[in-house]
């Protein structure tokens, strides 16, 4: 082992090539894309909710990347159309995730737009689905004797409601819910959207006027 | 090949130097191609389990599984030619599936041809028109003469479509364009069928009469459990929001009359057994089919247009020996008296008095 120089040069060259192809080129490609018309930036509350989402590690069980019909039946699951790079324009960093212990959440608001539902579900998932394995997040909620002005009371079935008093949502819970309710990327994908085309036809037909109107 | 001593020899480096490498390369490539060929052959010959190659059941396979090979298949809908003949076929199909509008002057109830001849007269064992077409002209005891297809369809209008209460007061006259169009449609459906044969799937099939006969009370239960959801608790069918019959009425003034084949219990039982409930043919037992057929044919319906004298005289002349409740007393009421037209229908009849002679 005495030819250090050529070895080092070769190693660096391989590294540089990989960085160029896997980081720099896609970065240039994606940065040139405008945010889709249907996507709006997060509000303050939603952005705070996104921080909560990150801090709770939701990513470890929930992906945010619906697949096309020839890869997975995500469409039938109600998870929405396959996502394109532009859908993550305001997500820095994106919360793509790799695990699907729970359902994909990129379009959770399209199928579950109810804030009340989300609050109940965050407080105690078993209150709705007795088979759910999602952790409950009681520490995002306060137990009060009576709801004060402006407090958001969580609707709970008798089996999970406290014996006395009410459960009200903390600011963190409200923020997280605001973020979840903002997750709706069901607007039509940009016609030339950046995505992996999979093994077959992966985009739906042209959107109908109804979709465009949304 | 692996036991070949020369193969082993070629493994040693010394042999490799002496040209064994080339030989080895040839062996390797040949073996690889042989493996590919072997695997391809195995897949082609279907000796590989399906799960291994990820092949699901395709639509074609399911279709092939349920259609027997010897069953005649009429041409596809989109195969109607673009020609004057094709236009007649299309008109015939329109009359067949939407009789009340396209032959409305001669329809005196709420039915369409396609209510009993399912899938536009294509479905086996629901009297498919391709099977009927190749058996006419033929002798029918019903009117004791040789019948052409036109004669036969005229009978359908007279009885099943109850033409006596139609605006015209009777079936289309001989030579009417309605027959031309319908016969064009039937002829086209029977494309490439052999003629003067009884094709598989002809008619409604036969269901033998159960040994114990039939029972109207049991039939009522079968009806409530299996039929009422579509045809209504009162058997009067159901309409959509625009008033169009989605499910046809089974008795009463808007159904077929006492002269129709379906008013015979054996015919109705065969149709029911082989076609009803829709999408679940064969789900009723023979006994249930007979019971429910008798139940729905034990209700009053428009009068037999052939009746000139009393009900008993008409029964002897036209229904004697048939499995029919016409002329019998059921639940204290003599069947066969006829319902008369519904008020809405009476308003559209050209000459109500002529169509409804006094008994």
């Amino acid at each position, binding site marked *: 082992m005495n030819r250090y120089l050529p070895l080092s040069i070769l190693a660096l060259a391989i590294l540089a090539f990989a960085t160029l192809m896997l980081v720099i080129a896609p970065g240039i490609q994606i940065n040139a894309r405008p945010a889709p018309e249907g996507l709006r930036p997060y509000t303050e509350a939603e952005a705070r909710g996104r921080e909560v989402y990150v801090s709770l590690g939701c990513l470890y069980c929930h992906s945010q990347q619906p697949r096309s019909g020839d890869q997975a039946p995500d469409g*039938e699951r109600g998870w929405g159309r396959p996502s394109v790079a532009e859908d993550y324009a305001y997500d820095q960093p994106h919360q793509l995730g790799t695990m699907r212990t729970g359902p994909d959440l990129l379009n959770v608001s399209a*199928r579950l737009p109810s804030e009340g539902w989300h609050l109940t579900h965050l407080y105690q998932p078993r209150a709705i689905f007795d088979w759910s394995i999602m952790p409950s997040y009681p520490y995002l909620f306060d137990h009060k004797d009576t709801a004060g002005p402006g407090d958001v009371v969580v609707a709970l079935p008798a089996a999970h409601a406290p014996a006395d008093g009410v459960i009200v949502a903390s600011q963190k819970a409200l923020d997280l819910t605001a973020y979840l309710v903002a997750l709706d990327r069901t607007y039509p994908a940009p016609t030339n959207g950046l995505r992996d085309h999979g093994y077959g036809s992966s985009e739906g037909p042209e959107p109908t006027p109804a979709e465009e109107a949304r | 090949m692996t036991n070949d001593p020369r193969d082993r020899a070629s493994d040693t480096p010394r042999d490799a130097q002496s040209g064994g490498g080339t030989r080895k390369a040839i062996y390797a490539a040949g073996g690889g191609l042989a*493996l590919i060929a072997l695997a391809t052959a195995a897949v082609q010959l279907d000796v590989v389990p399906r799960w291994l190659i990820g092949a699901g059941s395709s639509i074609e396979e399911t279709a092939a599984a349920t259609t027997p090979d010897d069953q005649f298949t009429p041409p596809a809908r989109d195969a109607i030619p673009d020609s004057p003949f094709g236009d007649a076929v299309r008109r015939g199909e329109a009359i067949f599936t939407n009789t009340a509008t396209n032959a409305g002057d001669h329809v005196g109830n709420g039915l369409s041809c396609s209510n009993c001849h399912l899938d536009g007269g294509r479905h086996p064992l629901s009297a498919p028109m391709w099977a009927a077409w190749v058996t006419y002209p033929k002798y029918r005891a019903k009117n004791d003469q040789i019948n052409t297809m036109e004669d036969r369809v005229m009978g359908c209008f007279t009885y099943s479509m109850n033409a006596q209460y139609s605006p015209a007061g009777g079936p289309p006259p001989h030579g009417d364009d309605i027959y031309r169009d319908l016969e064009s449609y039937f002829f086209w459906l029977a494309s490439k069928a052999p003629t003067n044969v009884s094709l598989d799937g002809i008619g409604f099939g036969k269901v033998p009469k159960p040994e114990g006969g039939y029972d109207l009370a049991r039939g009522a239960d079968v009806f409530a459990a299996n039929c009422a959801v579509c045809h209504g608790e009162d058997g009067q069918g159901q309409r959509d929001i625009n008033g169009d019959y989605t499910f046809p009425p089974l008795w009463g003034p808007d159904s077929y009359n006492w002269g129709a084949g379906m008013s015979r219990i054996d015919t109705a039982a065969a149709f029911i057994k082989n076609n009803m409930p829709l999408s679940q043919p064969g789900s009723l037992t023979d006994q249930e089919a007979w019971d429910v057929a008798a139940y729905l044919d034990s209700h009053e319906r428009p009068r037999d247009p052939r009746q000139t004298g009393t009900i008993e005289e008409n029964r002897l002349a036209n229904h004697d020996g048939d499995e029919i409740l016409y002329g019998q007393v059921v639940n204290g009421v003599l069947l066969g008296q006829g319902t008369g037209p519904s008020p809405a229908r009476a308003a559209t009849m050209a000459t109500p008095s002529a169509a409804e002679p006094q008994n």
Partner: protein
Amino acid sequence: MAHKSDPKRPAEIYEPYEEQAGVPLPVIWIAIALAFWGVLMLYDTGDSVRVSLNDRAEDSEALANVTPDEGASLFEANCATCHQPDGEGLRDAVPPLAGSEVVAAGPGIIARILLRGIDGPLTVADATYDGHMPSFASALSDAEIARLASYVTTRWANGPDGAASSADDVTDLRGEVADLGSFAGGMELARLIPSLPPQPPMPAPSAAPRDDADVLQLVFAGRDEVWSCASCHGDLGQGDETTPRLAGLPAAYITKQLHDFREGTRVNESMHLVASGLTKGEMTALGTYFATLRVPSNAGAVLSGDLARGEELALQGDWSIGVPACFTCHGASGFGVAPGFPGLAAQHAPYTAAQLANWAGGERHNDPLGLMAEISGALSTQDRRAVADYLATRPPVPAVAATMTRMETDDDQ
């Protein structure tokens, strides 16, 4: 390492080295076979991607250019199930286009009717009809409505082609009529078309449950342990994705589903919780409330299903696999026949496809006679996507006000 008793044990000074062993031939065979197979797969996949890309390009081109023949096929696809391919309508149910005084009024009127729909009795060609026509505003584009209006006028009113409306006209019209709702029968049409014969009066509206404060409270605010209907199904009951559209579904059907959710005969955990908090009277009132809502469609073909196959299944069925046409039971154009057969038109494709899958798999089994289980089971996944997508593109069910006649039993089964 060699064993001690091995006679060929090397001497102490022997430096162990590994003799260069040839790779066994079978390993090389397999490697070559795999490489060959890999190249084949790459070639295969590359081909299908190219094909699908070309397909998409052709699709978008076809949509951009509406050809003159398009009118006929648009009519076939959207109008013929009710007005019939020959425009003769259905006796006592659907007005004819041939000989219609309304069609004679020109493409502008036709375009308005297509955009707004009709909800009330009207007299056409000497006959009076109930008049329930859906709005096609959400199902058709401006260019398609213009083309269709011209086609109908040209074919049945011998209108000159010069009178054809253009897509721009329709765009203007769309804005003009956006908030007007459906035509109130022939009475309102007669105000636009002076030449119409005398029209029947509109039936007097009854006290609709939408005026009921308790029902409105449930729909928009919820109650203790019950989330509000609107929080998931939308303010107008339009739904999205797997949350179904409720607007225009038969009242008795909605009531029965609520009942089944509570009893557990239809499984949906969220709805179980909601339905458990409702009284029987409230279920009935909610059913009536949503049945009378008339809302534009917000559904679309999102599952990449084959729309032609979906249309075939909906209109003709596929008898070779034992599947009758959807519309045979769910009514012409999928408007539904109460209480057993809900409307399908404009329902969200993911919801429809998911329900079909549930029936096939046995998770849902509250249908009469198990009809849907058998039918869904016969459909392949592609078929379910196709038919769900096709139904989603249909114009929404023209909901009927509580007063209007509708063959609907009130029994709460």
